[in-house]
């Protein structure tokens, strides 16, 4: 139990750090896919099978590919912008992140909830169990999620449509 957890967390953390710090955007996207796959493995290790496979399908399959496409569509051929040095405010940003982690870690380590609980044996809920819950107790959230996904799909398509050519829409020179 200890060694798989250590391997998975190390892999996920290193690839997350790489995704946030590498210069080449495509490398960042590939490291993001590795991070998401590591998280899916952690879900599987915790016994959440359907969530793990949904994570692989949705994140590693769809979102990572979407990010790669966005990077390729917005690539001007020169990497000058991508390799531009981080802004001067990066110390501030990193400091805020460290402070947030310190607060979270302090709360976690002093909480009575977080320690002393053994793993609960919940079996492994099957897809059938989840489907029964989704179709009975959670049918309203499920419908709302369906509506949201439809609206998001339509909205994404409409937003990404090419702009109409009007004289006022000339791109400013940056």
């Amino acid at each position, binding site marked *: 139990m*200890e060694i798989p*957890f250590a391997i998975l967390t190390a892999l*996920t*953390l290193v690839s*997350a750090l790489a*995704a*946030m710090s590498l210069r080449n*955007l495509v490398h*960042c996207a590939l490291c*993001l896919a590795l*991070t*998401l796959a590591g998280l899916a493995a952690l*879900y599987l290790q*915790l016994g*959440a099978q359907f*969530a793990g496979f*949904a*994570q692989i399908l*949705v*994140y590693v399959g*769809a*979102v990572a590919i*979407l*990010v790669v*496409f966005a*990077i390729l*569509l*917005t690539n001007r051929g020169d990497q000058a912008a991508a390799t*531009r040095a*981080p*802004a001067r405010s*990066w110390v*501030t*940003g*990193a400091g805020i*992140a*460290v402070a*947030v*982690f310190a607060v*979270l870690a302090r709360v*976690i*380590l002093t*909480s009575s*909830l977080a*320690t002393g*609980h053994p*793993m*609960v044996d*919940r079996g492994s*809920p099957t897809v059938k169990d*989840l489907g029964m*819950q989704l179709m009975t107790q959670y049918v309203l*959230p499920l419908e709302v999620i369906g509506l949201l996904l439809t*609206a*998001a799909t339509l909205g*994404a398509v409409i*937003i990404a449509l090419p*702009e109409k050519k009007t004289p006022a829409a000339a*791109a400013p020179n*940056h």
Partner: protein
Amino acid sequence: MQLHHYLLFSALLFAVGLAGALTRRNAILVLIGVELMLNAANLNFIAFWRFLPEAPAMHGLLFVLFTIAVAAAEAAVGLALIIAIYRHYRSTQVDDLRSLHG
């Protein structure tokens, strides 16, 4: 393994995503940082579901499924916005988007 191991790891992942979202200047990388933070929250849901005996039988799993769906919608709309912004400004650097700057 104890619950706090998972919670600490998830807090670390959240901090990494937050640092990326705050320091990187490319809009796509900011979005990647937001995705990392959402995933850290998902790991928390699953860890609480697995470790706390008081938790209802399947709430954690269902919450994670809903979060994944919302995050996927967010990623699609966000990337479409980035592509539209790139068409207009020929740039994805958040520093270049200063039209509303006073």
